[in-house]
C-alpha cells in the first residue's frame, strides 16, 4: 500500500468497503436462505416439499431438518380449544390460578425453558432435528436449548435428578419414531394455558414424517400426580423450513414482567 498515491489509496479503501458491505448482505442471505444439499427440488429449483421422506442408510425415516408448528393451537392449549381434561384437585387449582393470571408466572417470562412438547409448539420459533444412529438431537432455537433422545438401547434412568426437558429414549416401530420421556421437574408447563404436571409425568411421543415437508406428532400425557387418567393431544403438524438455518437466540433482556397483569 505504501507506493499508492493518496487518491489511489482512497479508491482502494472505497472498493474494499463496498466489498465488505456487499459481503455483509450476502452473508445474511446465505445464512437465512441458502440452497442446502439434500433438498429435493422441483424442475424450477424450488424445494419439493411433497417428495418422499428421506431415509437413513439403515432404512429408517430420517427426521432431520428444521421444523416449525403450523400454528399456535397446541402451545395455546395442548388439549385442544374447549377441551376440558379432568384434573386432580391440586392440578385443577393450579391451572385455574394460571388461567386467571393470564400466564404471568409462566417460566418463559423469566427466560426459563418451555418443556416437552411445548418447546416445539411456538409456530414462529423453529427447531432442528439432527438424527444419528445412536441419538436424535433436538435443537430449539428459542433460548438456545437442546434435548437428546437416545436410541442406543438404554432404558430411562431410575429416580433421576429432575430435569426441565426430562430424559428421553427412542425406538422405531415401523416408520414411527416412538419416544418415552420421564424424569421431569415440576417447573415446566405443558402449554401456555398452564396445564400443569408433576414429577410423575411420563410422556410418549410418536413422530411420523409423512413426506419431505411434513412431520406429525402424537403426544400422550400420563401423570397420575395431576390427571386421574392418561390423555392425548390431537395430532400436531409441523412444516419443514427448507434451505435455511437456525439463529442464536439467548434471552438477554427480559423486561415484560413488570407490565404483566392478571387477577
Amino acid at each position, binding site marked *: 500500500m505504501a507506493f499508492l498515491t493518496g487518491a489511489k489509496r482512497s479508491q482502494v479503501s472505497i472498493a474494499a468497503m463496498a466489498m465488505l458491505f456487499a459481503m455483509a448482505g450476502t452473508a445474511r442471505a446465505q445464512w*437465512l436462505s441458502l*440452497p442446502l444439499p439434500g433438498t429435493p427440488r422441483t424442475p424450477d429449483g*424450488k424445494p419439493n416439499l411433497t417428495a418422499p421422506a428421506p431415509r437413513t442408510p439403515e432404512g429408517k425415516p430420517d427426521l432431520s431438518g428444521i421444523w416449525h408448528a403450523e400454528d*399456535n393451537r397446541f402451545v395455546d392449549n395442548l388439549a385442544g380449544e374447549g377441551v376440558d381434561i379432568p384434573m386432580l384437585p391440586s392440578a385443577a387449582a393450579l391451572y385455574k390460578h394460571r388461567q386467571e393470571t*393470564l*400466564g404471568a408466572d409462566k417460566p418463559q417470562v423469566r427466560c426459563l425453558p418451555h418443556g416437552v412438547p411445548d418447546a416445539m409448539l411456538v409456530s*414462529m420459533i423453529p427447531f432442528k432435528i439432527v438424527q444419528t444412529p445412536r441419538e436424535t438431537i433436538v435443537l430449539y432455537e428459542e433460548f438456545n436449548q437442546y434435548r437428546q433422545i437416545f436410541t442406543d438401547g438404554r432404558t430411562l434412568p431410575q429416580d433421576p435428578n429432575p430435569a426441565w426437558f426430562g430424559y428421553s429414549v427412542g425406538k422405531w416401530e415401523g416408520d414411527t419414531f416412538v419416544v418415552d420421556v420421564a424424569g421431569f421437574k415440576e417447573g415446566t408447563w405443558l402449554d401456555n394455558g398452564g396445564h400443569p404436571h408433576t414429577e410423575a409425568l411420563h410422556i410418549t411421543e410418536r413422530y411420523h414424517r409423512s413426506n419431505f415437508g411434513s412431520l406429525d406428532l402424537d403426544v400422550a400425557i400420563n401423570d397420575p400426580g395431576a390427571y386421574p387418567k392418561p390423555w392425548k393431544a390431537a395430532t400436531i403438524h409441523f412444516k419443514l423450513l427448507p*434451505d435455511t438455518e437456525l439463529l442464536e*437466540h439467548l434471552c438477554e*433482556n427480559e423486561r415484560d414482567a413488570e407490565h404483566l397483569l392478571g387477577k
Partner: protein
Amino acid sequence: MRTTLAVCVAAVGLFLSAGPAVAHHAFTAEFDSAKAMKVTGTITKFEWTNPHAWFYMDIKGDDGTVTNWGFEMNSPNMLLRNGWTRNSLKPGDVITVEAFGAKDGSHIGNAKAVTLTSTGQKLLAAPNQN
C-alpha cells in the same frame, strides 16, 4: 438468485401465515388488542435484543407536549426473517408505528408494523397477539 429470493419470500410467508406469536409471554397479559394505535414520531433508541426487540420514540401530543413511548416487537430472529436488520432503525428516524397499547395505560405498545417516513419502507414487526 431468483430462486433464493423466492425461497426467502416463501419462508417469510410461512411465518406470516403461521399466526400470532406467543414466544415467551402472553400478549393478553400485557397488551390490549382493542387499543389499536397508529402514531408518528422520532426514534430515540433501538434495542436489538432478545427475547424482544424494543424501540423508543418521542411522540408529540395535540397540546405540543412530547412523550417518550416504548414499543415491543418480536425477537431479532423473527425480525431478521421478516427483512429487518439491527440497523433498520436509528435515533432521529421519523417513523409511523401501528401498534396495540398497554392494558395498564403505560406508555408502551406492541408494534405490528413500522413505516419509515424517509423511504416509505414498511417493515412488519410480527407482534405477539395472543
